[in-house]
């Protein structure tokens, strides 16, 4: 009986996965040209800010914590492995990225780890932090590549970055998830009393969010993915829905949340705009204001805590 259930599960996920992949291919082949971002910032440094976030697109966020900058999952490329074109250009030109204290990479999937994007910022960061199993699958760069186990930290000049648990899938090209099953993580950045959670890509795993909240009880901000949502039968094992992202936000106990990981590439059945629309509806139902959950446009920077 248990075996039958396992086989049924694997078959249903596989069938859903095949259908999803085929629909994704069709939608990518008919994708519109990349849209330009109006009013891109020439200089993202904000002297008046203690905490600021600039959404570059997808899971790429430039965070300013006082005088330190960190960049999450940098993707500046205009396509993902020749299959998925970018819908909106990067919200910050890579040559405008300020000197970074660190770059973090949540996992190896092609929409989170771009070797060509790292080439573009190679001189701007001393270190790239990755989950276990990733370093052996990255090319050589001039910066240090350091793996962080869950709950272990990197610390330098007062900036501490800790790997925190999330639920996703390892590997880079789908099938190789079998070889690197633990290669995904979230991160928490701490500096001068500020603390920011970055969820990377995650399914809904309340225990992970609660454990993070227990260790970091005063999170200033949570960067949480809200997409892909559909097909939910397939995505539920790897991605939170917009509603679950709000659940995660509340479990984390963060003061503000910025939604990420939507409307930049086609990697789901969701129509562009569907995930933020669903998020807004769920925010309204919960009485969450846009002050607590600001929904940024790609290229938009928000000062969350001023000096």
């Amino acid at each position, binding site marked *: 009986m248990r075996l039958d259930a396992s086989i049924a599960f694997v078959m249903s996920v596989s069938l859903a996965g095949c259908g999803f992949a085929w629909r994704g291919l069709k939608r990518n082949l008919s994708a519109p040209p990349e849209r330009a971002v109006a009013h891109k910032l020439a200089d993202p440094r904000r002297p008046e800010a203690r905490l600021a976030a600039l959404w570059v697109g997808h899971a790429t966020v430039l965070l300013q914590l006082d005088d330190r900058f960190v960049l999450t999952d940098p993707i500046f490329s205009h396509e993902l*492995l020749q299959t998925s074109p970018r819908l909106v250009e990067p919200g910050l030109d890579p040559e405008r990225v300020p000197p970074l204290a660190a770059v973090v990479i949540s996992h190896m999937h092609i929409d989170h780890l771009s070797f*060509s994007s790292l080439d573009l910022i190679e001189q701007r960061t001393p270190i790239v932090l990755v989950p276990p199993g990733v370093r052996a*699958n990255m*090319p*050589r760069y001039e910066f240090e590549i350091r793996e962080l186990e869950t709950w272990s930290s990197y610390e330098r000049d007062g900036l501490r970055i800790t790997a925190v648990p999330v639920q996703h899938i390892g590997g*880079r*090209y789908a099938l190789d998830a079998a070889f690197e*099953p633990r290669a995904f993580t979230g991160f928490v950045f701490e500096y001068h009393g500020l603390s920011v959670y970055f969820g990377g890509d995650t399914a809904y795993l309340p225990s992970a969010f609660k454990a993070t909240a227990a260790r970091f009880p005063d999170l200033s901000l949570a960067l949480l993915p809200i997409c892909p949502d559909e097909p939910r039968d397939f995505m539920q094992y790897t991605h939170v829905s917009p509603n679950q992202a709000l659940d995660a936000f509340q479990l984390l106990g963060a003061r503000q949340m910025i939604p990420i990981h939507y409307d930049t590439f086609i990697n789901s059945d969701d129509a562009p705009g569907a995930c933020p629309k669903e998020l807004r509806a769920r925010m309204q139902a919960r009485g969450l204001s846009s002050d607590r959950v600001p929904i940024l446009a790609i290229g938009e920077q928000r000062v969350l805590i001023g000096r």
Partner: protein
Amino acid sequence: MSPVAAVGVWAAAQLIPSPLLVMSKQHVGGGMRWQLTPLLYSFGIAERPVRTFLVSPIVRHSGSVELHVSPEWACCVTGEQSSWLVRAGVRLYLPLLEHGEKLSWSLGGSYYRAAGGGGAAADLGIFTFAGALGLNLTVSPWLTRREVILALTIRLF
């Protein structure tokens, strides 16, 4: 996923054949080729440059030298020789675009052993889609009825 399942995924990936166009002056036929990598040294990867059997695309295509073993079967090639042969050789991979993940090329030399005897061969390849797809041209001047082979290389690991 358990280690047994991981081995199963790897083994299944190794069974995927690369279709061949087998050519000589008088004949054109088809065939299939499989590839194993008992040993590879990557000079493009950040960590663990030596790999055996399980080789991720970026490890190979960011720059590497591999020892490969390739069973090969040709159909529609009539004559004295068996349709099966095996090649063992060394191949150099060099990246062209995006650390080889978008585009890379290769140059190799091998020794083949067929029922009718053995000999030397050289090959030249170009690869895209993280090395999953490629074209590989193998020239074996002394291998009757299959002197030139064009392979559509399909390879995951």
